[in-house]
Structure formats: structure tokens, C-alpha cells
């Protein structure tokens, strides 16, 4: 078992590391690239951009997605925007400032070198996307427009109305489809990867199940890339699409890939509050709304008047009051916890008193309704469709919801996991956001990894295997994994219990939200760590999955995903319990300042907590990667 983690961060000054590294890694020459086969699982921003680029370079690529077309990946739902240090608005932005904001926003729990590289390539992403035809918002002069996002005092967020993720994904998807047409990329849709296959310690392929026919099959390659997204659905209710799950990276974890910081999850401050117990997911209202919306609750918990009847002097614009410098644009973790405090103190608004107001009245008066409409009309419409309320007239109601997972597979500077030949990109890895991600930075990271980082770094690994053919899929290593996968599937179908898989998922979600959500405590986490295994046992013996393997069976698909969520949930709690500090999205009640702000412990916890699978989900083995800060000074984040 690996006991040390080698981050492979290049030496030299921060700003030169990536350039130097690109020069020093081994390359595969153009004629040899076609001798390599690379499997990419996932076709979101990270997967599609990587597949397109590797195909352009001449590699043979196979892409797998459980969606019916690559364009459905969850990236499609990103609304607000993508950051880049273009400084088109001459407001003092720079690569260094984006780097600094991201490190600080992440509460000093990410690697300096990775974050700096991200800020550097952010410039190329905007160029690439624009050239592909991504219709970013423009000013009347025809140049690109920007807006601000939380945690930044400059305008560096590029956007395409409220559908930035959709447009960026369509760009990456179009580049991908161009390679499909040339034959460099082979596409497998409605196929779910269910395990990684290793030989002599290296990743040599995957085993999949066809979601239409049930066929379990092996695929081999020289390298495997996981671009399978995040795991917020461990909470059941989240802003993620229904099918988002942890299985791909969890299966990789069980095969030896370290899982880093599983407890770092982001609870997004601006989502539509749940309306009843049947709610299947929560809908995000983009953070960009905080540019123009003001957040408030009534000053008095007893004030039951409608929002428009409450005069300004009886309103508490609490973010503006508590954080005058950043106001409504404080980072997400800070905004979410503040809302929770308001609702917990009885000031929640709406029929279930489970929200706070996000009010556009001042902005509409200042800018005019047209301008606000131009910026946010699709978000306002979405809100109206869900709540039947008109946000131009009545303030929106919002509340935090699980949204993004900063944790993920541990990767080195080359984006390789602890299993040689196995890479993780996009939300699936842990790399750039520390303990809290800034808005508009996930799209940036997914595309940075896929377009500009992995295509360089993967050559360094492949160079050693020039001339080697892939391991044939009738090799015993594949047979073994195929048998295990089929065994799991049969197990679900033969459990013959009394409760649906969804029922268990909901119960698990409740435990996670209560004990490992926006705030965590030692006793709560310990309780979760005894409740989850008990529920898990019940799940295994009492689940009911009807139908067969041989035809499309959505409950069967879900059973495997929930199975893995049960194990992941334990890792999240173990990690949260081990981290005796509060940082970013991880807030331990025992560690807070008098004002209720997160209290970090840099002396003992400035590390990446990487967990190795031991066979017992409740007892993984911890290996720490110490974080070294050579450029920024660790300070207490202040947004006041």
C-alpha cells in the first residue's frame, strides 16, 4: 500500500512552475500517439474537453457516459458563469489575483501550484470557448461582458445568460462530436462504468454495464481517465442532477485510489427551499443573483407580515451588516452559515419558515426592469415555474442546499491518482478548491483539466509504455472484475426485501444533512457513524429491486449507486470527525470564533487528508499530504 503521497509539484518560482513542467515532461511524438488507447469515463465539461483534445492530438479515445448523449452531463445545468483573469475591464484583475482569491476562498487548504496553473490557463479557456462559438454575453460594443461572483472584488466572470454551463458544454460536446466523426473518438452512451481493472498495480481498463441490455463488458486501454463529477447526491436532496453519483470514483477508491478530503462539501446559499417531503431535488438560483439581489430577513422573529409590507427599518440585511466590505458577495460557506443562523433563530420566511429573502427591488429601481430582465430572465422564469411567485414583484425565497463537492480522488500535479495510469479530472478530483470553491470556478477547473492540463501530463505516463499493446479483455484480471460486477447486480435483484432503493437513499440523506451538512459536531458525527452502518445493513437485506438485469431497469441502476453512497457517507463522516478544525465548507461546532466564524488550525490541519480503502468503510487509513505555502501568508479570512 502507498504510504507517502508524492504531489510531483515542480520546483521553481510559482509563476514558472507550469511552463517549466510542460517543458520537462516527456512527450509522445505525433506518430506514436495513435498507438495509445485512452478510456475517458464521463462527458461533462472535463470529460468532453479532454476527449476532444486527446482525439485532436491523435490518441485513440473511448468515451463512456451513462447518459443518452454526452450533452446531458450535469455540467449542462451550471448557470452563473466561468472565471478568467482576462482583466478586460481593467479593474485590477490578474492571474495572481485570481490565484490569490481562489487560495483564500478555499480557506488555505489547496495546493498553491495547482491553483496558480488554473489561474494561468483560465485565459486560454475563454479564447477556446469563444472560438468554438460559445455565445458569451456581450456589451453593445461587441466585446465580452463580465459580472462579479462571491469572494471576489473584481468582475471576472464570463457568462451566457443564465446558462453558461449549457453553452460551454455544447462547445466541448461539439468539439467532441467532431472527433467522433473523424473516428478518433468512439462514443459509448447509456453505458455505466462499474469498476476499474488493474494489472500489476496499474489501471488497464474498466468494466461496464449496458443500461439498455444489461450486458456486462470489459474494455482495455493504456490509461483510464475518470471525469465523473461530484457526489453531492449523498445527501439525497441537492442541486445536482438526479443521476449524479459517486460510483465511478468510489470503485476506483476501492481499487487503491486515495480519496482526498471527502468531508469538504459545499452548501450553496441560494437555492429554492424545499416545499414538501416529496421533493426530489433542490433547484439552484445562481449566485450571480447576489450581484443585484439583497438578502434579508425580518428583524423580529415575530414579524409575520408579507415581505412587501415590511418597511426597510424592520428588515435585517444581515450580510451587508455583518460583512460591509463584501456585503451580499461573501463566499458561499459564509453566506450559507449566516442564512442558517437566521433561520435557526426563528426568522425564516415562507410557508415552512425555511428561507430568507433575496430581494431585487433596489436593483430594479436603480437599473430598470429591462436590465434585470436581460441579466436574469431565465432564472426568474425558472423560479416562477417552481414557486408560482413573481420575483420582479415579490422577493425570492432562498435557502442553502448541498451543491458541490471539493473532495474527490487524490491526484498529483499531473492529475494522476495513486493508481498508476488512472487519472481523475473535473469535480471528480480534489485538486484546486481547498475547503471551499468560489463561484464560477468549477467550470473553469473542469475545462482547464480537460483542455489544457491532462493532454500534456498524460504523455509523461504513456511514454513508458510505447510499443506495449493493451491487456486483452479475456485476461483473468478482467474476468475477475466482470464476475464481481455481475455478482453485485444479481445480489440487488435477489434481495427481495420490502423497501425501495429510493427510500433508503432518502433516509441516508437525512442523516448526512443533519450530522455532516452545514455544521458538524463530534457527537453528531459519532452518531452518524453508528446509524449509517445500521441503515446500510437494512439496505442490503431489505431492498426491493424488481425486474431483471436484461432490460432497462432504473431501480437496479440506482441500487448500485446508493450502495456506494452508503460507504462514501461513512468516509465523509470519518474525515469530518478527524478534522478538528473549521475551514471553508467544513464547519465543526467545537471550533468557532466568538462571532461564530470558522476557526482554522493551521498548525495541525494544513494538510490534505487522503484516505485509503482498507476493506472496512468505517475505518479507512489516513495519509496526509502536508500543504506548503511559499507565496501566500495564511491569515484568517475576513470579508468584513
Amino acid at each position: 500500500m502507498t504510504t507517502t503521497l508524492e504531489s510531483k509539484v515542480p520546483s521553481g518560482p510559482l509563476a514558472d512552475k507550469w511552463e517549466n513542467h510542460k517543458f520537462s515532461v516527456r512527450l509522445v511524438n505525433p506518430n506514436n500517439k495513435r498507438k495509445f488507447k485512452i478510456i475517458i469515463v464521463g462527458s461533462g465539461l472535463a470529460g468532453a474537453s479532454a476527449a476532444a483534445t486527446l482525439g485532436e492530438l491523435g490518441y485513440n479515445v473511448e468515451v463512456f457516459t451513462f447518459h443518452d448523449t454526452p450533452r446531458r452531463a450535469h455540467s449542462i445545468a451550471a448557470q452563473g458563469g466561468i472565471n478568467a483573469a482576462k482583466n478586460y475591464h481593467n479593474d485590477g484583475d490578474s492571474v495572481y489575483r485570481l490565484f490569490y482569491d481562489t487560495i483564500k476562498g478555499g480557506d488555505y487548504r489547496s495546493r498553491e501550484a495547482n491553483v496558480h496553473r488554473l489561474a494561468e490557463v483560465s485565459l486560454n479557456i475563454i479564447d477556446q470557448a469563444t472560438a468554438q462559438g460559445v455565445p458569451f454575453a456581450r456589451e453593445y460594443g461587441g466585446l465580452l461582458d463580465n459580472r462579479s461572483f462571491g469572494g471576489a472584488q473584481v468582475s471576472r466572470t464570463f457568462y451566457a445568460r443564465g446558462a453558461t454551463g449549457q453553452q460551454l458544454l455544447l462547445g466541448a460536446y461539439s468539439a467532441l462530436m467532431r472527433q467522433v466523426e473523424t473516428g478518433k473518438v468512439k462514443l459509448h452512451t447509456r453505458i455505466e462504468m462499474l469498476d476499474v481493472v488493474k494489472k500489476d498495480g496499474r489501471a488497464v481498463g474498466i468494466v461496464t454495464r449496458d443500461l439498455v441490455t444489461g450486458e456486462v463488458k470489459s474494455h482495455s486501454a493504456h490509461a483510464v481517465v475518470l471525469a465523473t463529477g461530484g457526489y453531492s447526491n449523498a445527501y439525497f436532496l441537492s442541486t445536482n442532477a438526479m443521476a449524479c453519483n459517486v460510483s465511478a470514483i468510489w470503485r476506483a477508491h476501492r481499487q487503491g485510489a486515495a480519496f482526498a478530503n471527502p468531508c469538504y462539501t459545499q452548501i450553496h446559499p441560494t437555492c429554492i427551499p424545499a416545499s414538501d417531503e416529496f421533493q426530489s431535488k433542490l433547484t439552484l438560483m445562481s449566485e450571480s443573483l447576489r450581484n443585484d439581489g439583497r438578502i434579508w430577513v425580518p428583524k423580529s422573529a415575530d414579524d409575520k407580515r408579507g415581505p412587501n409590507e415590511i418597511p426597510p427599518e424592520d428588515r435585517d440585511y444581515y450580510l451587508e451588516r455583518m460583512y460591509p466590505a463584501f456585503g451580499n458577495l461573501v463566499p458561499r460557506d459564509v453566506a450559507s452559515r449566516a442564512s442558517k443562523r437566521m433561520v435557526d433563530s426563528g426568522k425564516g420566511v415562507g410557508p415552512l419558515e425555511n428561507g430568507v429573502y433575496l430581494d431585487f427591488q433596489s436593483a430594479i429601481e436603480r437599473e430598470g426592469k429591462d436590465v434585470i430582465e436581460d441579466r436574469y430572465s431565465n432564472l426568474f422564469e425558472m423560479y416562477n415555474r417552481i414557486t408560482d411567485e413573481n420575483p420582479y414583484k415579490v422577493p425570492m425565497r432562498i435557502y442553502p442546499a448541498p451543491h458541490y463537492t471539493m473532495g474527490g480522488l487524490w491526484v498529483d500535479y499531473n492529475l494522476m491518482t495513486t493508481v498508476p495510469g488512472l487519472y481523475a479530472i473535473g469535480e471528480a478530483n480534489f485538486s484546486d478548491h481547498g475547503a471551499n470553491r468560489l463561484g464560477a470556478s468549477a467550470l473553469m477547473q473542469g475545462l482547464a483539466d480537460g483542455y489544457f492540463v491532462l493532454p500534456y501530463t498524460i504523455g509523461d505516463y504513456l511514454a513508458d509504455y510505447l510499443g506495449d499493446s493493451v491487456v486483452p479483455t479475456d485476461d483473468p484480471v478482467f474476468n475477475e472484475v466482470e464476475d464481481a460486477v455481475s455478482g453485485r447486480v444479481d445480489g440487488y435483484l435477489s434481495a427481495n426485501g420490502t423497501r425501495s432503493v429510493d427510500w433508503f437513499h432518502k433516509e441516508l440523506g437525512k442523516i448526512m444533512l443533519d450530522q455532516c451538512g452545514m455544521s458538524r459536531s463530534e457527537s453528531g458525527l459519532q452518531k452518524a457513524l453508528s446509524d449509517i452502518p445500521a441503515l446500510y445493513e437494512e439496505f442490503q437485506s431489505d431492498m426491493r429491486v424488481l425486474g431483471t438485469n436484461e432490460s432497462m431497469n432504473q431501480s437496479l441502476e440506482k441500487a448500485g449507486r446508493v450502495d456506494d453512497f452508503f460507504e462514501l457517507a461513512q468516509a465523509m463522516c470519518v474525515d469530518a470527525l478527524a478534522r478538528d478544525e473549521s475551514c471553508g465548507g467544513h464547519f465543526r461546532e467545537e471550533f468557532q470564533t466568538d462571532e461564530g466564524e470558522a476557526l482554522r488550525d493551521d498548525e495541525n490541519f494544513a494538510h490534505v487528508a487522503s484516505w485509503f480503502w482498507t476493506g472496512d468503510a468505517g475505518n479507512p487509513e489516513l495519509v496526509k499530504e502536508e500543504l506548503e505555502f511559499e507565496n501566500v501568508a495564511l491569515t484568517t479570512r475576513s470579508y468584513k
Partner: protein
Amino acid sequence: MNIVLQVWRQDSPESRGGFKTYQVKDISEEMSFLEMLDILNERLINQGEEPIAFDHDCREGICGTCGVMINGQAHGPQQGTATCQLHMRKFQDGETVVVEPWRATGFPLIRDLVVDRSAFDRIVEGGGYISVDTGSAPDANLIPIPKLVADTAFDAAACIGCGACVAACPNGAANLFTAAKISHLNLLPQGQSERWSRTENMVEIMEEFFGSCTNHGECEKACPKQISIDFIALMNADYVKAKFKNRRLVSQNG
């Protein structure tokens, strides 16, 4: 509220399908249509009946995965709304609601309400891109684009690829989808070099899979993104020009 659902059930492409009636009692008006199906499925599982297969994912009207015929209307009664964004308050207590899959030769049925829309990917493969290898792009602000042009391109690019236009069309034509894809790129300065080859290829692939457009306009009404049929006119005009220009280019080369 209570409703009566008549749902198309079919185990596989080969097997025979038919409608089944379900009484769905005690549901809330606040629920979305798909949450109502979730509840029905939960009840079916409890009774030992296999749940209804339906496609969905984001439930925010953006991924384009969902989509069923509701009382004969693609995505149901609310204009500009995908199935997942439709709420039960749009139905009457006691109403009978008929739910069917998209029906079109271009979309073979997989199971129950799920169909195969991969023909859309084939159309995009034929030219729904701008050829620009990663790393070869100039600075983004070197190509100023008038706001109006960018906005119109966006209007076309908003298509979520759900297939409602095809399902709503009496001929099962995919002209609105294809026109949206083509117009997005053909309107932009970056898209000009491949304009004619793109149009010709994509239209011809479309015709292999789908029926022909006879200007019924049902597609526009069904489209959750309210994509305008004006884009079809743009596509048709470009197609005619493309036929001419492409041939001329070929003869120049030859």
C-alpha cells in the same frame, strides 16, 4: 389532489405495448409532474409492480433528458416548459391524464416512456461544430460580435435537444432542432468558414433519420425553449445557397 393516469407501458422495443390505468391519489399541487411519477413508482414497487421507466436528470429544464406526451401535447400543457418543470397545479383534481413516449420513426422506443434520440448526435457529428483545435484560438476579444448577433445566436443555441419538436410534428421532422443547431453557428463570425458544408451535411443527415417539414409549426409551440421557426427559414435559405456554393467550390477544386 387525485388524478387518473393512463400510461404507455412496453417492456422492450420488440414487445407489444399498451396503456395501463393508475389511480394516483393524495398528491400535492406543489409537486412537479415527475415527482408525481416518482410517487406512483414508489407505490408500484410497494405493490410488487415494476416502476414506469422514464428519462430525466437535471429536473431544471436544461439537460433535455425528460420529455413525454401529456394529453397529446409534447411536454404537456404549459408553454415554454419542459416536462420536469411542469407542476401539478396545472392539472384539475380528478383529471384523467394520458402519458405516452415521444412517437417518431427517428426515435425508436426503448422501454415504457424512454426513447432513443441518438439520431440527434448523428446530425451534430455531421457539422455542428466550428473546427478549432484546442490551443489554436486567438484572444477572445479579437472577434467583436455585435450584441444583437450574439443574442440571436444564443436564442438558437438555447435548444436543449429534447426532441419535443420531432414528437409534436405530424411528420416526425427534426427541422427545428437542426435549424437551431445550424443557425447558432451560421450566425456567428466564427462559424462562417464551414457555413455551407455544415448546412448541407447536417440537413442531409437529418433527412436520413426524420420526416420532412411541411410547415405545420407544431414544433415551435411544443419547444420548451421557444425556439423560433424563423430559424428553419434561415436554414432552408442557407441550404439552397449551400447546394450552389458547395458545388462551385468542388468544381474550383476539381
